[in-house]
């Protein structure tokens, strides 16, 4: 077992352990904080995959914006739910069985594909992935259309969020 694999396994334990805490912990504010740990583990994973830009975006956008938004929402609505008994449905075992079934099914499919057992080659030194990413996002024969659609979606979502959350002022 090489150093790469040990780092990956530690990172996977961080991700899966904190993800489990997100779904089972009772206090919602703790769930939001465990989500931050999960997102940080995923950022480490991006760094291992040599997607440095995505690792930074993960920390800035997910942890810096989305997780903080969650914590704000929990604080604005918590009076009702503060440790008032169990936080899960009485039939929580049904989704648990479903999750285990889906996981075993996916693992069997993944293990059954011999193409997935290989390791990655080195990225050639002539390939600058960050430059390629920037060019792909704005080049008309690559992904400029999805990029612009995403920006319009964000604008519409933020305007809508402000309108919905501000309430009706008559």
């Amino acid at each position: 077992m090489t150093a790469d694999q040990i780092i990956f396994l530690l990172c996977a334990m961080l991700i899966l352990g904190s993800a489990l805490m997100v779904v089972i912990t009772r206090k919602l504010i703790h769930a939001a904080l465990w989500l931050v740990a999960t997102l940080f583990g995923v950022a480490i994973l991006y760094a291992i995959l040599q997607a440095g830009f995505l690792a930074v975006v993960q920390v800035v956008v997910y942890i810096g914006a989305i997780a903080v938004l969650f914590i704000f929402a929990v604080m604005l609505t918590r009076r009702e739910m503060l440790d008032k008994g169990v936080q899960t449905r009485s039939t929580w075992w049904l989704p648990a069985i479903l999750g285990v079934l889906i996981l075993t099914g996916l693992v069997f499919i993944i293990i059954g594909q011999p193409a997935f057992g290989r390791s990655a080659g080195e990225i050639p030194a002539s390939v600058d992935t960050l430059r390629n990413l920037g060019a792909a996002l704005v080049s008309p024969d690559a992904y400029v259309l999805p990029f612009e659609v995403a920006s319009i979606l964000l604008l519409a979502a933020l305007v809508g969020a402000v309108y919905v959350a501000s309430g009706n002022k008559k």
Partner: protein
Amino acid sequence: MSIPLSWYLILAAALFSIGLFGVLSRKNAIAILLGVELMLNAVNINLVAFWRYTDPAKMTGQVFAIIVFAVAAAEVAVGLALIISVYRRRNTVIADEIDLMKW
């Protein structure tokens, strides 16, 4: 890079299953959104892993991961705004009690 591709895929599958369990088993609407975030992250791990293990010179996987980031941000903004609005009117964030449109 001596990690097989299947390790990433299995990790993403496990993260997705945990997120699915959270979405289906939680009562609180905010906790349901937390589960959706876990599932979106699992998808992103898959996209970036396939980018790295096929052709790193083509950026398709990373571009789609960035678009998933944007969609996740939009989803959280609108979702939390709706939850806060519902909380203001009906004083609850429990998904079962928000049944105004239930026939």
